[in-house]
């Protein structure tokens, strides 16, 4: 399944913001609700070793530019293999956005979803393919 991110679009300049706000930051114009795909590119990321109160250390933060235009702050389980420009998926867990590297599974899922195939079937096929790779010891470092 592809995560849909609630957003808002400016009818005057086309800017998409997430989370949704009432007005465009550049125009005193009411925004229209939008729903955008949770796929995008890492703009930047950092790791805090002494995060603010209420956050676990180390805290991985990424700024992700979603394909539909909005940029989002996300948390992540780690930054191994992540670079500026990496393709990532963004998903909400308990109303908090998390990024994860788009690996083999997600890339296959995204390809087939866009090709119109049934996502769930493809996911299970891709998952078992990924598991075989792992067992063969060739999955690491991908």
């Amino acid at each position, binding site marked *: 399944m592809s995560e849909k991110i609630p957003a808002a679009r400016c009818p005057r300049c086309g*800017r998409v*913001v997430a*989370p949704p706000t009432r007005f465009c*930051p*550049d125009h005193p114009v009411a925004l229209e609700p939008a729903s955008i795909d949770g796929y995008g590119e890492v*703009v*930047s*990321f*950092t*790791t*805090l*070793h*002494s*995060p*603010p*109160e209420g*956050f676990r250390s180390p*805290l991985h*933060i990424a*700024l992700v530019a979603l394909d539909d235009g*909005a*940029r*989002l*702050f*996300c*948390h992540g389980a780690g*930054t191994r293999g992540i*670079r*500026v*420009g990496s393709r990532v998926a963004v998903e909400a867990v308990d109303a*908090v*956005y998390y990024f994860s590297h788009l690996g083999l599974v997600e890339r296959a899922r995204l390809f087939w979803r866009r090709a119109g195939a049934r996502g769930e079937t493809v996911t299970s096929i891709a998952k078992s393919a990924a598991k075989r790779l792992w067992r063969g010891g060739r999955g690491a470092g991908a």
Partner: protein
Amino acid sequence: MPDVWIAGAGMTRFGKREENLPDLVAEAARAALAAARLEAPDLVVVAAMNPEEFIGEGNFASQIATHLGFAHVPALRVETATSSGAAAVYTAFAVVAAGLSRSVLVVGGEKMTHLPTPRVSEIIGRSIDRDERAYGATMPALAGLITRVLLAKTGVTLKEISQVSVKNHAHGALNPYAHFQEPVTLAAVMESRIVADPLRLYHCCPISDGAAALVLSADRTPVRIAGIGHGTDTLAVRYRDSLVSFRATQDAARAAYRMAGFGPERVEVAEVHDAFSPFELIALEDLGLVPAGKAGAATLRGETALEGRLPVNPSGGLKARGHPLAATGIAQIVELVWQLLGQAHGRQVAARVGLAHSIGGLATNNWVTLLERVS
């Protein structure tokens, strides 16, 4: 528009201070008034970013006016986060230029070191967009994100960023008002603890106490405010297309140069807002002082050192002079006044025109001020 002149400048030593904020503010104010040979101004403009949170005080302009013996003098407070001092100078400039007052005392300060560091970070962090704070975004975290993009996209190196800290510490070592008066080595900067990967501790300015003050006047003095400009950007960093330049700086610079009637080519000394060392490199290019893409190399070559082509942060900058928030934008101009008048003992440069650049929040509310010595 009538000219606005600087009649007096003064500041406290920055660093860990035992005095309370009103006493620090009074020390700076009395120094500036003494330099201006003025007993009482027509107006007091006070800059303080978070006195409510840091010291539990409100109605701060009236408190300061009364504390200075100016209960009869109109007083007001100005706040634009970390550029509050520069915003107060702008306010005073506008009042004098409009003919509403002939002399204005501008004074700003902050008292922070008595609180634990996480508490200070949290208070300063309230100037960040709420939805970004919810992800743990602090000022160092946002600076870490910016540094990562700089390294990945512009060719700036960690060594060039670190050299900014080395240079500014070397300058601070010559400034008796500086928080840090010891040099640091490049190795020490590059090996210091990681704060927000790839940003390290010695790339970040300290938490400081202190105050700075100016007297602005309608009467001619040797130093004129030639131009002053204000630029803004979105509170949310995620709303910006670029992280490697600050629109707020570019707009402020454009406005200041337009008012002055000259461009960056006449600037001979600059005080820029190096709250994080990479910000100095971004500022030099946004201000047009160094061609795009060249700030890192220019810094490594020593062009921005005290003896270089364009001395930048002769005071030590925020990194070494320290950063008592609302004092900083005023202290930058104090340093420039001393430099232009030949009073920057031990770190004097040769200059007729100086530029001060102040960042509010994460570059949401920036100011550029141009000073000119008129003989």
